[in-house]
């Protein structure tokens, strides 16, 4: 279900460190933080929990936000990027 990797982009406007959290906490953090950025801005969620890979795209579909894809952080932890569009 992974989206095609986007072209290299500038860093996110907000990065959430959800390393070590278990589901559904990373998605709860994302839902809280999305209102802290402007429409058009990008939030990145760095999470070690395996369910986050599926739940961030599902959250974007349910809450009408744009899922941009996944890229590894410097420490190799997957980071899921979301653009606020609503």
């Amino acid at each position, binding site marked *: 279900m992974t989206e095609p990797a986007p072209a290299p982009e500038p860093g996110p406007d907000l990065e959430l460190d959800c390393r070590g959290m278990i*589901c559904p906490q990373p998605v709860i953090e994302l839902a809280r933080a999305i209102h802290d950025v402007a429409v058009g801005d990008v939030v990145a969620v760095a999470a070690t929990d395996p369910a986050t890979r*599926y739940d961030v795209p599902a959250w974007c579909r349910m809450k009408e936000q744009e899922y941009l894809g996944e890229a590894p952080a410097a420490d190799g932890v997957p980071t899921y990027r979301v653009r606020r569009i609503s």
Partner: protein
Amino acid sequence: MSAGEEQGRAVRPVYLDSASSEPLHPAARETLLAALDRGYADPRRLHGPGRDARLLLDNARAVVAESLQVRPDEVSFTTSGTTAVHLGLLGLARARRTRGAVIVHSEVEHSAVHQAARWGGEPLVVGVMGDGTVYDGDLVANSVAPGVAVCALQSANHEVGTLQPVGEFELANDVPLFVDACASMGRLPLPSGWSALAGSAHKWGGPAGVGILLVRTGVRWENPFPDDDRTDHRAGGFENVPAALAAAAALQTVMAERTELNARHHAWIERIRATAESLPDTEVVGAPDRRLPHLVTFSCLYANGEALVTALDRRGFGVASGSACTASTLEPSHVLAAMGALTHGNVRVSLTRDTTAEDIERFCAVLPEVVAEVRA
């Protein structure tokens, strides 16, 4: 407060997890008890008790064959649904090993199919739509690739209830189709178009430890495991004659009961679907109409699946979950992931033949407060 008690009032515990295992059907229990004292001997022996065991085993096979409208020599009793899947899928593949080792299957197959394909072949996995229905065009297109030995598709999904279009497409190049019918056997008619098919007795109210393997007459099948010198060349090990007979009796009875039961279950599941859909940030997963009659799955955003299962259990409701926190592997359900569905906060409800209208009303009454409590 113990499970099944709420506010000091004793409440009948309500088991809503028949998709994991249906309680033993009274017809199975009665037959099992009657057969336990008779079916102990080796059905291959020529003495009286051996002949008696053979008679019971042949009777079990005949009843299953008649119920499923297949030939008795197409029916094998295995030691589980999983074993029937292994034998059916890998036996078709082994008979075509000169052609190749590729096993094409949908992404939402039971883990028994995923694991068997990895163990005994080269899996080629085909994706599904958002409601869990396989892209059957991709299944057909991939099955003509070089080296394909066999294609596998479930009759219905065990986690979300979506029916697959088995019998609605044709595979080219004589590629055989293996069908895992464990989730639907007994409840729904067998689909057409299969070369081998697997079922599991404890899903329809038979005893655990009995699987059904069907292999169509004329289909090439070779034992993927060491041969055993038993009454049935497809199934190894000493036959559990009383359990096979009990499974057959339950199958015959549930098929006689199912028209009425399925209609009732279908309506009750509709009621639970509507209740779940009315909850905030909750998504019902799986096909709304082309589905098993007795099963529904939904996911609640921001809720922990294990907490939902535990909170419902405290109120007397036994349900399952595909969320990672409820799995021994700590991986979320591969079915939900393949569908792009939310994997956390997941609950699967599946009705038994003993479920009552009152159970459904009580469940629908407590669900909103349970979800709110877990989210808080």
